């Protein structure tokens, strides 16, 4: 009991004290195949950041040719104790401030472009699945059981925002500093018009009908035009800022876990189960892309022509031509 209490104290202290991440790492040409990759972000200077299971942080400054593998020190103890899954990573527009969220309420913060990371206390042990960085001080995080966290002071303090629906949220996005959208179980879509301080039901949310699948991902090209996707090829689109949604379907009934827009081609990409990817030109139809992997894709990011998709079993797909061709990093 004494030992357990001591360990708990250490844990709490570790959370409060901030633990720098390991800046050393090992260089490799691909991700470990036994680990899952859950999140990807590309800094404005094209440096790629990928997070995954077992506190994995992969970075590449040469557009994916080589990778530096690091373990984020997310709790006290040796490297074998660093085992929380990291689910999402996002930077602000400058690429200096950034956050990682993950399992059991984990929030990590950087102010030096991802060289070092320190822990922030969000006051929860629920899984945090996604975050949206509005600016260097304002961030919204969504997670399990209706959890919405928001900070307006760069993460010094986190405020729990009341959700109109007690469902798990899987994704959140802010097309501008005021307008935000999040999606979750029971095809729930919430919208905010005040920078994430309050949220209202935009679509779905019928928690009494268990046959209704979730939406896993949301993407808005501007405050009016957006799209959500979920289980079994279900998608929905809006062109009026979320007031109305039109249901659509992918050509194949596969689950979609990530939506992203290529800034150069303006095509919207969706990736999901079994490595399936589809893209849609503005006003066009969904087109299947050549399959470069059979593993589930979990996140997708573009900067210029460079695009990176990540997934389970260490899957990394790269494109240097805005998605015309995807190549698996072996």
């Amino acid at each position, binding site marked *: 009991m004494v*030992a*357990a209490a*001591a*360990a708990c104290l250490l844990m709490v202290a570790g959370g409060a004290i901030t633990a720098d991440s390991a800046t050393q790492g090992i260089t490799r040409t691909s991700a*470990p195949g*036994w*680990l*899952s990759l*859950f999140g990807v972000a590309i800094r404005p200077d094209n440096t790629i950041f990928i997070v995954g*299971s*077992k506190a994995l942080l992969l970075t590449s400054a040469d557009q994916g040719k080589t990778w530096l593998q690091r373990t984020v020190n997310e709790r006290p*103890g*040796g490297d*074998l*104790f660093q*085992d929380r*899954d990291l*689910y999402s990573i996002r930077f602000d527009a400058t690429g200096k401030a950034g956050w990682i969220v993950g*399992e059991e309420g984990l929030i990590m913060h950087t102010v030096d472009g991802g060289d070092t990371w320190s822990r922030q206390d969000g006051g929860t042990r629920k*899984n945090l*699945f996604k975050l949206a960085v509005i600016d260097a001080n304002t961030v919204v995080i969504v997670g*399990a059981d209706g959890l919405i966290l928001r900070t307006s002071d760069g993460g010094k303090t986190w405020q729990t925002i009341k959700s109109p629906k007690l469902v*798990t949220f*899987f994704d959140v996005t802010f097309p501008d500093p005021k307008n935000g959208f999040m999606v979750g*179980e029971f095809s729930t879509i919430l919208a905010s018009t005040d920078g994430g301080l309050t949220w209202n039901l935009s679509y779905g949310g019928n928690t009494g009908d*268990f*046959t*209704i*699948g*979730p939406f*896993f991902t949301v993407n808005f090209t501007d405050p009016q035009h957006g799209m959500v996707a979920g*289980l*079994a090829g279900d998608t929905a689109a809006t062109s009026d800022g979320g007031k109305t949604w039109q249901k659509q379907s992918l050509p194949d009934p596969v*689950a979609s*876990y990530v939506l992203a827009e290529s800034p150069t081609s303006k095509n919207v990409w969706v990736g999901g*189960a*079994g490595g399936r990817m589809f893209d849609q030109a503005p006003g066009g139809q969904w087109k299947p892309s050549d399959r470069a992997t*059979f*593993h*589930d894709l*979990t996140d997708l990011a573009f900067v210029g022509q460079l695009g990176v998709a990540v*997934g*389970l*079993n260490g899957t990394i797909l790269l494109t240097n031509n805005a998605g015309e061709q995807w190549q698996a990093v072996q």
Partner: protein
Amino acid sequence: MTSLRIGDFVVRFRAIVGAILLIVSAFFGYECTKVVVQTKFDDFFPSYHHNVQLYQEWHKYGGAQTLAVMVQVKHGNIFNFDTLKKIQDVQRDVDRLPGVDHNEVLSLASYRVSYAEATPGSLTIKPFMFPEVPKDQAGITALKKTVQANHANISQLVSADLKSALVTASFNERGLDYKQLFYQVQDIVKKYQDANNEVYIAGEPIVRGYGYYYERTVLTLFLLAVGVMILILWATGSQRSRWWAPIVTGFLSAVWGLGFVGLMGYDFDPVMLVIPFILTARDMSHGIQWQGRLHDELDRLGDKLAACAATTDFMLPPGLLSILADISGIIFISFGGIPVLQHIALAGTVWLAGSLTMVFIFQPILMSYLPTPEIKHRAQKEIGGTMRSVHDFLQWFVHIPTRPGALRKVLLWGSCLFLVYGVISGLDSKIGYSTAGTPLYKSDSKVNHDILAVGKKFPLEEGWIILTTPSYPDKQSVLGPGVLRMVDDMRDYLFRDPKVAQVVSFSSTVSEPFNEMFHYGFPKYLAVPESVEMSGNLWFLYLNGSAPGELERFISNRSNNDTCIRVLLRDHNYDTLNNIRDRIKRFVDERVAPDPALNKVHVEYLAGIAGLYLSANDVLKQLDFYNITFVLGVVWLFCLFSFRSFVAAFMFLFACVLANFGAFIYMNLRDIGLTIDTIPVISLGIGLGVDYGIYMVARIRDEVMGGMEVDDAIVLALQSTGVAVFNTFLVMIGGIFPWIFSPLLFHNEMSTLLIFLMGTNMIAGCIILPCYLSWARPSFVFGGRSSMKERDLAGAKAAAS
């Protein structure tokens, strides 16, 4: 005085002693009929070792005897009806093999190999390809997609390139008939192999089964080797009649040894046939030495009975010494606790002890009843031409030790350098396996070809880590999130070793994928369940959706207080096994032990076939070191006692180290490691040639005690005992040589090693030791009692009285 009486005693009571020995031989002859040629898997590993005990305790997690049958297509991939049907048929045929554990037959077509699928409102568990193979292209395409999407969980059954599929099966070890199993598996291979589908087989039952496949060849080689020995014996000894006497005594010694094997109920592994052959060769070697000395004594004394008695007296002390050296070489391997080595050691001891009675007691009796061996008259030929050169060379050769000069210095200093090199090689000797496949057979043999082909696609070696915990719903039960997380951390840590191909645990194979599927298949839920209750629910879902016995591969009982983590390795090399154990130890020390949330969790390792190999390696490493030390100690002690001289004791120690550590030079050059198979042969080899030096030095000493100058005694000993030693050497080489052509690499390497060992022993005994005696003239050569003089005096006294 005692030695004098033994010879007389044997001759005086030859009838009764001979009859007793024949009766005992008849008894052992009857017991020989009970010898069974078969392999017992359990016998190959040390029963007291933690890994073996762990394996036996957790045997419910499957057997270590795994058969792997790989179906591989030449063109395309396995996703065509023909190949998929073959996979299913192979699975069914394997399931009918004798001794198979039906719960452990796994393949793409098994109902135990399944995946979970999430649909809105439901979670279903489906086998990949059971009960039927998809009949249309759409079904086959769907199957292919399912396999690809779930490949991480069945990578041990379907290769990454989709060209190969594996059917694996475990067997109940007790009573497993390897021969029957081997031929039935061969039938499966023949039945399903065709132009586009190749079938490869691997696994411990196949490796052992090949012993039966080559049984006839090995037996033929055995008989050929015996024939060659007899031929050489005839060629070198037939100038005297009764040259065949050593064959009789060698045969009777073999009857004693084999009879003991039958009496004790030991099994006889067909691969190990080389060992009784070596033992028989040893018996004959002593018999040849004895017969050679008898001929010398006949020439000297002119009386058959007196010569028999005198030969017994002269030969018994060095013979006893060399046989004790032989026995000490083999008896110590029984202390390793490996049953097969214990059996070899005990049977070998009786066999060699049989040689003591047969050669040194029965051979004089036999010869005393047979007519006096006479020199057959041969036409005297003028020595000339090539023969003259050979004669001149031999004359020059026998004088090498007594001729001061550069050559003798080079020999003495060269032997010292060789000894140093040998000791360094000995310290650097390899333990266990150092290549993929089995070292019993050649690298291009069918068995190794198959093992390598399967090993390229699938891991073949499996180690088990066993967790024992409190029962569910304790948070530290095997379903507790903290425990599942630790297991997953261990998986991650073990995967960092490139020799680890897969880690199969309840956490990674069931709990996390089910957690994911339970949450709409959302990938971020591919993680440890958040609570022990959720974990219990997922366990229940799996239990209800899976085939009977499937859960028991991970968790053995419904209390959920133990689990097995299977580490699949790419090979079973010494370093691979040691590294994985070290890695697990570090994980337990640094991750499990300091975590108070895991203080009721016990981690034990390493069971499974990898753990068993590791246990053998642990024992062999110690065994080899202690064995050599023990043999050298025995040689030192016996020589000290026999020659009553520390100098003599150290001299023989030097010769023994010189000759036997040379074996390590050969082993390192050929990349041969100490394994359960090689260690009995190497141990036998340690004592194999020690007698050469002992016989030589004893003869020199006897001649010096008889009044001869040291150098003259050396020359005489080389011309008489040296010839007998050389004849023995030739007979043994001749007998061992045919084994070089064995299809078994093990026989090939061991026979070459033995030839090398005997060569170094002969050089040490016939050249280096005489060189030292002539150069140093140690006092023990001049001191002590002369057997020859005493016998002559005794004979004179007897004549006078």
